[in-house]
């Protein structure tokens, strides 16, 4: 029985970490270090590498556009999507030029972007909310996006969003 388990796991490992020349199974890559899924990676002819980092909670989806040039990692853009039924709607977007990727910077940017989104909606509705409350709400939503996929209580149903992101 032990050897059967081992054999099954060997097949599993071979599919997700194949030897050079063999295709890897198409499963979204969760990067625990950056707390996001890595999607749509490609390498340009000049050797620069680009990918999208995706993280989400039950309220929003965040997409980071990351570029790797030589020794540096840059943040090229951040997009925030809100849900409309099962569809995603872009609600905030920021582009950056030659800005080094820094986790703390991105988290702060996201909190600001979500807060701006709330403020815009409230203003359009001629409503308002105390600034502190807005900031707290935005922070708690962003904190939720940094939950680990490896946690046992992670809502895995949310990963169904990934194909939609890959089509964008």
């Amino acid at each position, binding site marked *: 029985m032990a050897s059967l388990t081992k054999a099954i796991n060997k097949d599993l490992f071979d599919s997700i970490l194949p030897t050079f020349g063999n295709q890897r199974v198409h499963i979204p890559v969760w990067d625990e270090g950056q707390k996001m899924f890595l999607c749509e990676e490609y*390498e340009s002819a000049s050797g620069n590498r680009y990918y999208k980092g995706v993280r989400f909670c039950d309220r929003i989806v965040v997409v980071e556009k990351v570029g790797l040039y030589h020794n540096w990692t840059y943040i090229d853009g951040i997009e925030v999507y809100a849900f409309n039924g099962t569809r995603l709607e872009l609600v905030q977007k920021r582009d950056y030029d030659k800005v080094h990727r820094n*986790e703390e910077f991105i988290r702060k940017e996201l909190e600001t972007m979500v807060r701006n989104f709330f403020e815009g909606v409230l203003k359009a509705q001629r409503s308002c909310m105390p600034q502190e409350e807005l900031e707290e709400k935005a922070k708690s939503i962003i904190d939720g996006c940094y939950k680990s996929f490896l946690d046992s209580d992670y809502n895995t149903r949310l990963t169904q969003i990934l194909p939609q992101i890959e089509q964008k």
Partner: protein
Amino acid sequence: MNTSLALIAAKALPALSGSSLTYNAEKNVYLTLGYTSAAGNTYYRAIRLSDRLAVYYHIGQGYAHTFLNGITLFAWNGQKANIIAQKFWGGCNWRCFNERSAKEESILMLKDFLKGQAKAMGSMVAESQLLDFSRSMIEATHQKCLG
């Protein structure tokens, strides 16, 4: 560089297929061409390869210390390389380079990648087995015949 490794680097990592790689036999590692900043710090990547993985250490060489600025793990997908895990340190979270701790960090990063993949596929794999497999995969990148 040995022929099979050169082939892998040229096909999967085109940015590394030029003449900018040097092999450090003592450390059994490939080093990219360094970049020296105006402040006099030099930045380069130290790369180890196996038939399943490429491990990049992003290194910064300062006046008195060598820093580990990040680690990137690549898996092969056909003849291309895909990032499967990345971690960066810097600012107040800086860390000096240490071969042993960088290796241990790589093992943990690989274990988390495997755990995520197994979870996404609905498979349950014991933590100890994930760790054993990760360790053996990272060890393989340190073996001289492949590096």
